[in-house]
């Protein structure tokens, strides 16, 4: 394994291998919650936050499982621990920062079943990242997700006024927009690789 630099891991996860636009992780919120900027921004921030939390938990679990040599329980442990971590975050937020909870809280339960979260945990395990690398990966993935969903929301708000062809009103248009954004993000391929 070559030691990938932290900045490269961050940029790669955020742009070239954007979680939504290149890996298709977190598509449900990307398509579902991108209708309005008002909801897209908190959704992106909340997801990034949960990504960070679950990346750290996944790193810990994997360390424990590997030292006990029971890796076959990895998937179950990840999903259980991530779900509980989100619950915990929700409770802590509610107690200590009600304002933040109000803006993010409604999205937290949605995020638990978001494949981007589990995907992050699984990919960082597959890539055998160390702790700092995992952190960079989680931050990059979160930033990339936020970027994608916010760009999408801006475009969709503008298109809300457009006179779309009838078959294109609805999911098809969102998918095509996603395809265009995905095309654009291909331009970042190999960024920071040299």
């Amino acid at each position, binding site marked *: 394994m070559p030691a990938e630099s932290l900045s490269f891991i961050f940029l790669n996860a955020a742009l070239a291998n954007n979680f939504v636009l290149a890996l298709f992780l977190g*598509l449900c919120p990307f398509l579902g919650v991108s209708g309005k900027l008002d909801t897209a921004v908190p959704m992106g921030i909340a997801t990034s936050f949960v990504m960070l939390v679950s990346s750290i938990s996944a790193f810990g679990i994997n360390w424990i499982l590997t030292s006990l040599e029971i890796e076959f329980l990895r998937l179950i442990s990840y*999903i259980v621990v991530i779900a509980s971590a989100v619950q915990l975050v929700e409770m802590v937020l509610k107690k200590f920062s009600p304002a933040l909870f109000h803006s993010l809280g409604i999205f937290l339960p949605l995020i638990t079943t978001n494949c981007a979260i589990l995907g992050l945990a699984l990919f960082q395990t597959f890539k055998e990242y160390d702790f700092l690398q995992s952190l960079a990966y989680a931050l990059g993935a979160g930033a990339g997700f936020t970027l994608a969903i916010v760009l999408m929301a801006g475009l969709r708000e503008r298109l809300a006024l457009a006179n779309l062809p*009838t078959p294109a009103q609805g999911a098809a248009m969102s*998918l095509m927009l*996603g395809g265009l954004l995905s095309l654009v993000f291909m331009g970042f391929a190999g960024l920071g690789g040299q």
Partner: protein
Amino acid sequence: MSLHNPHIDWQTFTDGLWKENPVFVMLLGMCPVLAVTNSAINALAMGLATTFVLLASGLLVSLLRHQIPKQVRIATYILIIATFVTIVDYLIQAISLELYNALGAFIQLIVVNCMILGRAEAYASKHRVAKSLLNALGMGLGFTFALLCLGVVREVLGAGSLFGVDLFGSQFEPWVVMVLPPGGFIVLGGWLLLFEWLRERRAAAQLEKEAARAR
């Protein structure tokens, strides 16, 4: 809806195939739909793996539906689903390492396919075993069908082959974009456009027919 319809069992099965197709109609489980459909064989394998998890989790949830307390049902379902996904993961590894490498982490990501949890919660926990299985099979095959729709188009255009068999000879210039991420979005968007367009035409024809009858 019509629970006492004698044909209910048949409909339970066919709904998932077309009318309530998890991908084309309900837009569920999009992540594997787009991520692993760059070839038909990957699409088929992912579809069958998902069907297996649907069937197995549907069976278990349906069997245990009277035993599982309401408060912990979601946790239990997730546990059950994660179990079968882990099993599928090992089975695929045992069957073909090549396939396993091609699908990568997306097999394990079946766990968070909302379709499966949705079926467990909305159907299997409320119906008899046979019915749940039939419904799961319908949904699973519908999902597989949708994946194949994408996989076939993307592989034929993007690689000039189908199930790995070369179709057009070596001079064919593949449209590489189709096997890349944007191709996934565009092909699924294209299928949805096509279906929506057909539906509109059918509705328009229906209207016309009714108007003619009224006249």
